[in-house]
């Protein structure tokens, strides 16, 4: 109980200081309207004043840069880098189950591998001249041979396939090649033309419709050749093993590409004439560009082999990538028939490579 002598009113606190008038300055004061306590603000000011302005500015710039980099890495570079790492890991691995375990398909009338006569190997005087997809461009071929000062009997000519079709004078190119005693490999155009020709002689119910499209083109083309020219084309192997050349290791010529770690005799002939990319993991080649470029995997795998076991491949077929020279692969198709260039690699006795090309006259495919 409260002491009875003290009235309750006395218990009410003095409220005079709650009486704030808006006429006083204090009412508009910012005293307590702050984010950082003035005491702290003071401390910060004291410290930052000691840091030069320029450094403060740099700090901001660096922060912005770091944020940008982080975002770029997260959204683009990171995934790119991990894909690159994954591809590298795939290329490094030797898969247990990979393409090429089968018995290589055997085709009648298709020669898988030939070895070039040793007498054509380059030395001090002799050179090897390898030329990309000619496609019937005889004039350009003649120009290029002139430009490299090709001498019959001394130098040896090798053609990387697709000698014929599309261009103006396929029979002319073949007869020139025959005349120069050139070596060649079978390209997809030779393959299709020769197979069409063989098919017409083995069956009589080949449906007429089947031949109405490019197959009839291939047969028409076949009719422009003499039997001796056809026989010469049929002798072109899928793969030509040229032999050992300093710096280059074993030199091999093929039209499209090869699957690494598979012997030449075991290479799938269809893909050797048609591949453009390969699955780095399963080593499954493809005609499309969906996978790793085959020559990328090829170069990667060659570098892992002991020096004496390495193989350099000279090929054509891939017009889009054009002249494409890497350590263990030389791509020579620079699209002559569609108005590009005709390219030759001239290889000397010490393995030195010189690239020579001529501009082609026009786009013959139009």
């Amino acid at each position, binding site marked *: 109980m409260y002491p009875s002598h003290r009235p309750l009113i006395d218990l009410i606190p003095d409220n005079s200081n709650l009486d704030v008038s808006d006429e006083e300055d204090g009412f508009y004061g910012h005293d307590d309207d702050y984010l950082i306590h003035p005491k702290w603000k003071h401390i910060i000011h004291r410290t930052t004043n000691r840091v030069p302005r320029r450094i403060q500015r740099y700090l901001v710039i660096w922060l912005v840069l770091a944020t940008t980099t982080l975002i770029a890495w997260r959204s683009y570079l990171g995934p790119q880098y991990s894909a690159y790492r994954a591809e590298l890991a795939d290329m490094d691995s030797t898969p247990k189950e990979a393409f090429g375990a089968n018995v290589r398909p055997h*085709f009648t009338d298709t020669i898988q591998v030939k070895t070039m006569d040793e007498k054509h190997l380059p030395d001090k005087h002799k050179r090897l001249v390898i030329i990309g997809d000619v496609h019937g461009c005889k004039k350009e071929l003649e120009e290029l041979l002139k430009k490299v000062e090709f001498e019959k009997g001394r130098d040896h000519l090798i053609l990387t396939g697709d000698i014929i079709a599309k261009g103006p004078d396929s029979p002319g190119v073949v007869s020139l090649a025959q005349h120069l005693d050139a070596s060649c490999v079978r390209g997809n155009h030779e393959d299709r033309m020769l197979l069409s020709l063989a098919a017409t002689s083995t069956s009589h*119910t*080949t449906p007429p419709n089947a031949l109405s499209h490019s197959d009839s083109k291939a047969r028409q083309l076949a009719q422009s050749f003499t039997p001796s020219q056809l026989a010469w084309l049929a002798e072109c192997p899928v793969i030509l093993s040229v032999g050992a050349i300093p710096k280059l290791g074993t030199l091999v010529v093929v039209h499209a590409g090869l699957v690494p770690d598979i012997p030449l005799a075991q290479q799938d002939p269809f893909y050797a004439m048609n591949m453009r990319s390969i699955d780095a993991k399963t080593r499954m080649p493809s005609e499309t560009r969906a996978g790793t470029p085959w020559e990328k995997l090829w170069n990667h795998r060659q570098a892992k082999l002991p020096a004496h076991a390495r193989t350099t491949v000279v090929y054509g077929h891939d017009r889009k990538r054009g002249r494409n020279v890497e350590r263990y692969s030389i791509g020579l198709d620079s699209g002559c028939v569609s108005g590009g260039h005709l390219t030759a690699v001239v290889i000397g006795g010490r393995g030195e490579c010189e690239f020579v090309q001529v501009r082609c006259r026009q786009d013959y495919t139009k």
Partner: protein
Amino acid sequence: MKASQYAIAVALASVIATTLASPTGSVEKSDGKKEIGLRQEQESPREDKKKNKYFNEPGTTHQLGHYDARYFHGVVSDKERTDTQLHMIRAYLDFFRSKRLDTWLAHGTLLGWWWNGRRLPWDWDMDTQVSEATLQYLGEKHNHTKHEYTSDDGKTKREYILDINPWLWERERGDGMNIIDARWVDTRNGLFIDITGLSEIHPDTAPGVWRCKNNHKYETLELYPMRETVFEGVAAKVPYSYDKILIDEYTEKALILTRWEGHIWDAETKVWIKTQAQIEAEAEEARIREEIKKEEQRKKGGK
């Protein structure tokens, strides 16, 4: 009242019957909808589509689906099947070659060729393809012909019948009962090679696209020109882009993985070898079959 209802029912039934009996080859099936509609009509309980089926098998199981009912005398052993298939495909390929007719390996048979130029040991089906033109020629000139065969060593003599499905004019899948166009049947046990014809169904709108009645699609340029090769020791043909056709049908795994259906690829000898587990499973299966047979005989004896 009743008479008019009967009349309507009869009229309806006859309309449906004529629709079913008329050739469906001319029906435009550019979209899936119509096809579904057609099939539903045919699956009505009134008509049993099975009776439209030309080639019949003693059963639909894994075991019985691979015999022609007319020549079936019971399931053969694994050994007999292998031997039958070997001579059967040789005789088939030799016959086509001697008549200068185009035929080529397809499906599982093509896959077997790809691996080692032989059949896949677990494959009960043998498949070949011909063009529609060849199929019609066969129907005209060689239907129901019998072919005597003697193996190269002279030890094996066989007889085969070439039977062309009269539904060959129908180039669409139809009711799915006649998707096999012809058969090369061993008359001793009813094992056969399935022959399917490819037609360019829409030469105007989709030129260069070939289809079998089971709707496998091929392009002219991946089929032709064919490649001459060797299968089971005799000359055979395979399509131009054999790899692509196999990948489209079976995916890349079929050309890479070395374990399939209880068999493992031997990298040294390059043949498919039956795994121990598979051998045991088959022995068990054979034992059970034997017991069932005995049981049946006992029952017969008891009666």
